[in-house]
């Protein structure tokens, strides 16, 4: 069992305060994603965007009782974001900052690119986007159709293509777009794009839940990308292509998993506050629910420790993400059952949690993709082989 030390408990307590601030606005942002712009005084919206930035680029980390937090390790992130997700996942996903694109910029950006990108985030609360998923092809990086082409002559490379289900794309100032730059796995790259670039257009897609995140479709029609906006130009080809940035996704997956845990916990805590949930049978069901949530939370903590130790070791993160997606759906549906007929309309927050829970499945690769990751690792470690030939 993983227990948090004093330092992480301080971080957790701070996050709970931030979460308490956003909880009253969960339904308002669900009904109207633009309501987020009126909440910028709240810490999640005013300060989270200035975190999750590497220490060398962030002079203003979060300081709690003398301890400094940058929220750049997977463990710090999940300890903090679990509590914020319990407050409200929709607002967490709608908050300014670069929780996903910042990881790629940190892994592949040059010092100048990092200075520029993170500087923008520190300047004022700034939304960013992370444009990987494409219509019809999902998040399968090997089949990206968006292309970065260098025209004949001296002009900059031009970006053409379509992206879909990109959080905050319609309100973001800048972000990362993944595109094909040539053939094969090395012919994939990532570039920095600003919203006001000619040829960039983003249109919100109404979704069933996490509506605050305002997922959007992006159309890229000849967006000019100068050389200094192409990530990883200073890196060897093996590190700037998909092989290079796919490993960074391992760092993000525990975060998605903990969001599922957060939704499940929010649901459980909501049930505890209901008077109806007081009978003996209900207490038993709540006890089982609490144990299930803690188990997936522990798995997610283990996955974060694993990727912090080795960014290539993402199989636990895949497993945690599969478990968390299942957990969030199961707990929210069961909670509605426990409250009986009419619960969805009489308990709008619970209904919202049930809708938000389903988002975990689709973020950072579906459960099918994650299961394949778990399977590959199982085989790599020698499952089915003689004990002496197993590696783990």
């Amino acid at each position: 069992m993983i227990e948090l030390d004093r330092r992480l408990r301080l971080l957790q307590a701070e996050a709970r305060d931030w979460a308490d601030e956003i909880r009253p606005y969960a339904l308002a942002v669900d009904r109207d994603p633009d309501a987020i712009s009126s909440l910028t005084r709240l810490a999640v919206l005013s300060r989270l965007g200035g975190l999750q930035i590497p220490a060398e680029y962030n002079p203003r980390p979060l300081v709690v009782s003398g301890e400094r937090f940058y929220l750049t390790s997977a463990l710090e992130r999940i300890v903090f974001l679990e509590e914020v997700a319990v407050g409200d996942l929709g607002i967490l996903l709608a908050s300014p900052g670069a929780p996903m694109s910042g990881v790629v910029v940190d892994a592949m950006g040059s010092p100048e690119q990092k200075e520029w990108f993170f500087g923008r985030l520190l300047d004022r609360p700034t939304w960013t986007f992370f444009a990987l998923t494409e219509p019809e092809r999902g998040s399968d990086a090997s089949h990206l159709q968006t292309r970065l082409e260098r025209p004949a002559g001296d002009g900059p490379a031009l970006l053409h293509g379509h992206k879909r289900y990109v959080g905050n794309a319609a309100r973001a100032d800048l972000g990362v777009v993944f595109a094909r730059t040539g053939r094969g796995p090395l012919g994939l790259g990532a570039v920095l794009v600003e919203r006001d670039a000619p040829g960039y257009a983003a249109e919100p897609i109404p979704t069933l839940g996490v509506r605050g995140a305002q997922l959007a479709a992006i159309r890229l029609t000849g967006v000019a990308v100068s050389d200094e906006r192409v990530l990883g130009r200073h890196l060897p080809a093996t590190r700037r292509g998909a092989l290079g940035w796919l490993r960074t996704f391992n760092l993000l997956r525990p975060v998605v998993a903990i969001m599922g845990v957060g939704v499940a916990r929010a649901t459980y805590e909501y049930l505890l506050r209901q008077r109806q949930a007081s009978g003996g049978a209900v207490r038993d069901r709540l006890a089982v629910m609490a144990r299930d949530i803690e188990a997936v939370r522990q798995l997610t903590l283990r996955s974060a420790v694993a990727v912090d130790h080795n960014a290539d070791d993402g199989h636990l993160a895949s497993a945690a993400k599969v478990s968390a997606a299942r957990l969030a759906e199961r707990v929210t549906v069961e909670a509605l059952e426990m409250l009986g007929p009419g619960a969805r309309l009489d308990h709008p927050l619970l209904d919202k949690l049930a809708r938000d829970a389903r988002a975990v499945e689709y973020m950072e690769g579906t459960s099918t993709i994650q299961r394949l990751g778990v399977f590959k690792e199982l085989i790599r470690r020698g499952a089915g082989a003689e004990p002496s030939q197993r590696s783990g």
Partner: protein
Amino acid sequence: MTTGWVVTRGVDATQPWHLLQGLAREQGWQGALTRLHALAGSDVMVVGPGGQALVCPELARTAVGLHVGGTRLPRDRARERVLPVPVAGLVALRVRSEPPTAAAEWHPWTAAIAGLRLGLTYRLLDQAVAHLGRRSSGGVPLLHHQALQVSIADLAVEHLELGCVLDTAQGRLGATAAADLHRRITWVDRKLLHLFGAYGYEADGPAATGHVSELLADTYGLPRGEEVPA
């Protein structure tokens, strides 16, 4: 070797649950929901045991009466409240604040709602197969992948089982059986929605069908412990 005889009892196609099942599969939730209310009479909203109703905007505008269990009551707009739902074209209303209606009065509607939901889940399977049939991965049509074929077959088997439960009930579904049926439909729907990928999360796509279906079970389900006469 001696073989036995079986008697296949025909399904009465005029039964509300059967009618709504077919309509839901062919026309989707809007057509089936409109018909559900029409079965109670013209310009009437069927109200759930908890005093809530799910209707299309047209009926929300024109209804003059409420069908509460087996009783018709006048509509009192002054006491109504519109409840927010994330599905375009669906109106949720709280029309009464009285205690839940006695279960016995709910007998005909319990099976009708289950039939409607079963039709919607069949529709989701139809749409999922059509959706996947248009997609490929690595140059191979998705429907050629054996793992996906097995997943879809599992859901089809679950559908067949659920259909048999409702057929066997012949329109007389007890509260416990209905709750179990609804739970199973909810989970088969969610597995079906996963087959669409993120498209299954768009508010205007199949997610709306799944969400309306869950709302129907919730709004028109019987209170826990209430049993209708079998």
